């Protein structure tokens, strides 16, 4: 079969709702797009541990501390599920890490913002995980089997993340004036970056059409963003705090909230590496990798020693 026929057959399988598995024939671009997308997603989970990890030792109670520890541990686990899914496409874990550590691969820009106060931990769970969930629920139906299966596991675990964040903010909003102001301040700083998490507007997202055709994405960036706004505004009302957008209002006709223009220059600036924490995040990942080298070496040396000992035993 020539490439054109193979591509036609491949598209027919996708159109019929079949899942693609790692050893199946796939267009090179489908493979590359998936390696890029899944690894970016994995890197986001791993880098996403940093802003929150910073608060584990300063959580205000034991209850908050165990929850935050469990959440950060989940994120490490989610990164590992995703790296495994990417590896089924023929790229090695070392190469994936290398792309992250050299800055060649991207991760979600949201993690280049700092978590300045305890309320930020609430806002991250509520908004950042909330936005991620909307994207990830869509991805449970993505066409590549290993990615879809990783997403099912992740979505099951993720809903506690959002709830624990919302509970943090609820507690602050029911607290003193200063605590409530802290929650409002966190919302002010995290709102716009959260909306940017869904990526550029549809008309500026040239890959969307192909991704929708291959069922990598089932909804466009703007559709997902609208869904997020519609979900989130009533939740902010319950908290009694307001999003920093004077143009936000309910549109009866559309059945959706209208919202103001996003400052895309900020988005691209952070993507290009000029956000508040880009350098710090990358330095922390590199340090973790370099400082862990001796552990990996020791584990391998230990396994070799054990294997030799076993051989000797067999010989006797």
């Amino acid at each position, binding site marked *: 079969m020539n490439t054109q026929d193979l591509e036609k057959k491949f598209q027919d399988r996708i159109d019929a709702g079949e899942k693609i*598995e790692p*050893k*199946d*024939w796939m267009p090179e671009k489908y493979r590359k797009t998936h390696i890029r997308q899944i690894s970016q997603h994995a890197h986001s989970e791993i880098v996403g541990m940093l802003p929150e990890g910073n608060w584990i030792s300063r959580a205000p109670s034991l209850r908050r501390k165990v929850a935050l520890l*469990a959440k950060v*541990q*989940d994120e490490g*686990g989610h990164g*590992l*599920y995703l790296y*495994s899914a990417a*590896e089924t496409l023929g790229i*090695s*874990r*070392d190469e994936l890490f*290398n792309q992250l550590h050299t800055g060649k691969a991207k991760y979600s820009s949201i993690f280049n913002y700092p978590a300045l106060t305890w309320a930020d931990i609430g806002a991250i769970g509520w908004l950042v995980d909330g936005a991620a969930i909307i994207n990830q629920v869509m991805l449970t139906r993505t066409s590549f089997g290993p990615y879809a*299966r*990783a997403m099912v*596991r992740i979505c099951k*675990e993720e809903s506690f993340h959002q709830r624990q964040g919302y509970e943090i903010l609820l507690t602050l909003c029911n607290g003193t004036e200063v605590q409530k102001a802290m929650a409002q301040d966190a919302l002010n700083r995290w709102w716009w970056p959260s909306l940017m998490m869904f990526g550029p507007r549809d008309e500026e997202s040239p890959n969307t059409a192909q991704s929708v055709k291959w069922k990598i994405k089932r909804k466009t960036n703007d559709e997902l963003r609208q869904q997020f706004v519609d979900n989130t505004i009533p939740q902010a009302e319950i908290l009694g705090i307001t999003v920093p957008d004077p143009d936000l209002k309910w549109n009866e006709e559309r059945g959706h909230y209208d919202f103001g223009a996003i400052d895309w220059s900020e988005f691209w600036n952070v993507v290009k590496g000029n956000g508040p924490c880009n350098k710090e995040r990358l330095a922390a990942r590199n340090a973790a990798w370099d400082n862990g*080298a001796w552990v*990996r*070496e020791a*584990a*391998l040396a*230990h*396994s070799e020693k*054990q*294997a030799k000992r076993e051989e000797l035993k067999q010989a006797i």
Partner: protein
Amino acid sequence: MANQGLPIWEVFIRSKNGLEHRHVGSLHAADAEMALENARDVYTRREEGVSLWVVESKHITASNPEHQGELFEPAQDKVYRHPTFYKLPDELEHM
């Protein structure tokens, strides 16, 4: 880079006694013991299982999707392997 790469292991979990082990994913580990410990941390944080299997991926032989036809299509025309192939009277119950 110092790391020459830890081998890949496939992880299988028995969710409760009476059910089979099912494949859940993979991970990297230096040896079987480390693979079991990592599998516990990565795949059973919420009581997903009562038993774990790990096997180094290189030991698995997989069928080639291109041979799907010759492997599995012969079963398609053997409808007589299914109970519904046999025409029996309606009054015959529970068979």
